[in-house]
């Protein structure tokens, strides 16, 4: 037990110290922050140029009020004269016909920005509507008072009572979780495999297994790499959260969308995070045992292809189905089965999580994951103990089966 701890420690420390790990750990939150910064910048980048709008109001009822960057002037006279008198490229001429239902024209020397045109259109509509109401005898002041601002908040009825959901946020989170699991199973699983191949080709394996049991070495490596993965996630989440807090703190009004997003995750986030951690850990143990067995069976990484393909296929299949199928019909028999079978469950179940998976399904899926990784670890350990000492023998599936049945 003490020795397995030593192995975990070595695997962990040598990996965490690597430049690649440090770069990745810093780079991802930096990219995240960069993305935020761009969004914040874009949101802040409002039209800051001064526009002067020369209004030719043939109708006579459109009285605009000046704004910080838009000034309204009523020059009188003809449209053609106003057009000729434009001083700057940023100035415009607004030609309002006697009947505002006819086309209103906006002239400028260069293309007008959409937001400005929109803005003017909105203002005119407001004025016209108000005018119309007044003419029809409607008290606009009273109307403004009773005008409501309705936002739909979807509420889900469950056995435990009604709970508020923000569908977008929970989906996004579970989808991100599924993608993260999918990617990291490959990234860290491959690390386990490469580690095994390295020990084998280095020939240090014989020294190590004369001190510890092959099973201890394999588990030590798997757990060590797993902890590296967890460390990376934790660092990513804390660093990203820290950065977004800092960025968010400075640009709070513009990032209200983000704030409400985070706020809406609320209670669901905890549940999803727990599921994510569970499926990440069990999925990692499940797959990396298989990866370790593959690593032990080959002499170099190039030979791994024939074994990697069938191992990764179910996960790839589930991943491809995730958006198009699992999200749209999360309760179909195929979706349920995919979320039960340990090969595909880590991704499939993460996708189904926001749809309130029945407790018994979750329980079965989770127990199968645990049984699954114990089973793959058992098989992998039996292949591994023989494989690591085999050199120059081209491993086939038949050969692996033979190794499995070898006595100690």
């Amino acid at each position, binding site marked *: 037990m003490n020795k397995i701890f030593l192995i975990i420690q070595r695997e962990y420390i040598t990996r965490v110290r690597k430049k690649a790990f440090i770069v990745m750990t810093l780079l991802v939150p930096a990219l995240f922050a960069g993305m935020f910064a761009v969004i914040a910048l874009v949101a802040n980048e409002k039209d800051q140029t001064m526009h002067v709008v020369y209004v030719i109001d043939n109708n006579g009822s459109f009285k605009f009020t000046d704004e910080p960057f838009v000034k309204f002037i009523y020059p009188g006279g003809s449209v053609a004269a106003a057009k000729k008198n434009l001083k700057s490229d940023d100035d415009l001429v607004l030609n309002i016909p006697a009947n505002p239902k006819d086309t209103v024209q906006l002239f400028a020397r260069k293309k007008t920005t959409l937001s400005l045109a929109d803005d003017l259109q909105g203002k005119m509509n407001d004025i016209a509507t108000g005018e119309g109401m007044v003419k029809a005898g409607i008290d606009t002041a009273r109307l403004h008072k009773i005008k409501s601002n309705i936002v739909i908040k979807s509420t889900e009825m469950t056995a435990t009572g009604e709970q508020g959901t923000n569908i977008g946020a929970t989906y996004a989170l579970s989808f991100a979780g599924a993608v993260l699991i999918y990617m990291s199973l490959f990234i860290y699983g491959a690390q386990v495999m490469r580690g095994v191949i390295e020990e084998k080709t280095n*020939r240090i394996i014989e020294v190590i297994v004369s001190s510890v049991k092959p099973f201890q070495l394999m588990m030590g490596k798997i757990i060590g790499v797993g902890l590296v993965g967890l460390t990376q996630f934790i660092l990513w989440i804390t660093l990203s959260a820290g950065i977004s807090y800092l960025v968010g703190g400075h640009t709070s009004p513009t990032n209200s969308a983000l704030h409400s997003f985070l706020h809406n995750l609320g209670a669901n986030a905890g549940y999803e995070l727990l599921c994510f951690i569970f499926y990440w850990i069990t999925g990692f143990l499940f797959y990396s045992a298989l990866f370790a067995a593959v690593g032990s069976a080959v002499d170099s990484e190039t030979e791994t292809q024939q074994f990697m393909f069938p191992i990764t296929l179910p996960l790839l299949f589930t991943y491809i189905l995730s958006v198009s199928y699992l999200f749209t019909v999360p309760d179909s028999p195929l979706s349920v089965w995919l979320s039960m079978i340990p090969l595909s469950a880590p991704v499939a179940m993460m996708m189904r999580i926001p749809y309130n998976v029945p407790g018994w399904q979750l329980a079965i899926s989770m127990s199968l994951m645990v049984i699954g990784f114990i089973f793959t670890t058992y098989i992998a350990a039996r292949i591994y103990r023989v494989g690591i000492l085999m050199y120059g023998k081209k491993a086939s599936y038949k050969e692996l089966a033979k190794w499995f049945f070898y006595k100690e």
Partner: protein
Amino acid sequence: MLSIRNIVKQYAGHTALSDVSLEVKSGQIFGLLGPNGAGKTSLIRIITQITAPDSGEIFFNGQKLDQSHIERMGYLPEERGLYKKMEIGEQMIYLARLKGLSRDEATKRLKVWFAKLGMETWWKMKIEELSKGMQQKAQFVATVLHEPDLIILDEPFSGFDPVNAEIIKNEILELNRKGATILFSTHQMESVEELCDAIVLLNRSKKILEGPIKDIKSAYRNNIYLVEYEGQQVGINGAAPFEVVTETAGEDNLHTVKVKLKAGSTSNDLLQYLMPKTRINMLHEVIPSMNEIFIEQVSKIA
């Protein structure tokens, strides 16, 4: 120290060891000999508990071999290897800790060894920065750092230049003097004659020869003597108690004759026959070398 009884190990296609038994006494330097594929590595892997035998038993100091004995063994495999990217000091402490040493103790001992073998400057170096010979030296230290009672060395001298091979040989002898039992497998018969107290010769999974070197060699004495005399060439007739195998005449009237004693004769008879006829400079028995015994035994069976 190590008692190996009726070990059988079979792999899918072939038998690696069939009914091999041997005894290694405490304090011995024991040679495990045999041509390639004889089953030496299989036997070593069973002793180091990397694999288990199909049948048969091994006793370590009278106790049945189990996990607890692992820490009392040091094993240097034929195919050397260390983690290429790891610093050498850290790596060797790791290996020693896997053998049950504490970090402090391992560090202390490692410093002593590094000083002894002139490796102090290597501590922070990575294995891949060292030459092959240096790696071998480091690995030897890793093998013996935990002061094992039984040191198993598979071809310990391969890859060393003569100077370093001598250093390692002396270290092995010193460890042996301090009480370690040494089991080593090799093809180099000179080192066997020089170092080993006893040997076992394996061929095609079977033990074909065993015992102390002295006994084996005397068992292979075949009454051949080498005589050097000075003066005229001596005519040897049928009355002589020996037969001439080869005869060579050297410079200054020196003659060297290789003779085989007839049955029942001794070297004294040989001297008595020759003494009246010439002046004898030297007489010694020709004892076959381990190399000759090895080749004879292995090719006899093949």
